[in-house]
């Protein structure tokens, strides 16, 4: 299953670059195999609330997912992003990620947010 979970990233550019490169390698391999993939990010990072390093990774992945989804739409594979918050049930997050990675049922290029912390905030 092609699920990319963001690892610990600080504000060092080398860490940011390495993490995005790791996502790129997973994404390229999945695309070459014509398989769907999913990125899992923290919702706070989409809004830049936990520092620039984490923010650059999370929003970079969201944009990459939207672009890859355009490519996958022609071939039948999907790309989505699951965002969780501190109160999200890890099993629920995992269940959604696995579902989207294996049988997205036509959902692609979407941001699926687990938990209510995004309500009333900017749309990423």
């Amino acid at each position, binding site marked *: 299953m092609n699920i990319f979970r963001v690892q610990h990233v600080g504000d060092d*550019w080398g860490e*940011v*670059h390495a993490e*995005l*490169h790791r996502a*790129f390698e997973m*994404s*390229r391999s999945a*695309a*070459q195999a014509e398989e769907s993939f999913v990125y899992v990010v923290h919702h706070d*990072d*989409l*809004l*830049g*609330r936990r*520092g*620039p390093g*984490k*923010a*650059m*990774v*999370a*929003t*970079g*992945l*969201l*944009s*990459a997912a*939207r*672009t*890859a*989804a*355009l*490519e996958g739409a022609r071939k039948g594979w999907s790309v989505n992003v699951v965002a969780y918050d501190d109160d999200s049930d890890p099993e629920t997050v995992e269940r959604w990620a696995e579902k989207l990675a294996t049988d997205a049922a036509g959902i692609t*290029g979407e941001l699926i947010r687990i938990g209510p912390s995004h309500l009333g905030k*900017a749309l*990423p």
Partner: protein
Amino acid sequence: MNGCIVVTGAARGIGRAIATRLAANPSFTVIGVDLSADLADVDDIVPVQVDLTKAEGVEMVKLAVIEAGVPLLGLVNNAGITRDSRLVNMTDEDFDAVLDVNLGAAYHLSTALADLIAENGAIVNIASRAYLGNFGQFNYSMSKGGVVGLTRALALSLAPHVRVNAVAPGLIGTEMAMAIPEEVLEKMVAAIPLDRMGTPAEVANVVWFLLTPLSSYVTGHVVVVGGGRSLS
């Protein structure tokens, strides 16, 4: 208030339009940064020819700001490149190069200059409408999405002293756009509700708004300058 503004990628296209728009105001000293030497011919811009992916390049810009001897009022992170291909064919080299220039340089320079920016100053990051997704631009789209995240994080960390916003241009009539095959360009323009490409000057107008007190209560936002393309 007199002061200086740093504009990266200022030698041509959108960056040049921003730099010349700002330089037309006698209150501003514009420091134009680019890898190219073309800036040397532009009147009223202090040229700094450096590679912003290198630490010494960032230091040279910082030195130029200090040598200007006036407050730093703003920074426009505009430098960017493209290396387009479908994800399945994208090379590590093309991925890394786009990420380092479009996102890494903006991050390094913002970090280096943040403490020098005057009270009520502003940073404007040039993202791209491609942050919403654009076929064949996995690396570019990721880098510009990262710029949006950087914008939001800096907007929070530098508030209330410095505002940080982003501009996301769509199809703009630059050299880069003119290199697109004519029949492809026609199809792209046909998908734009305003039925034309934008001009670099139209992007510069929005940057002006976000840099100056006209937008004094706006921070952490992305303004799409795309002729309505995101709706069609």
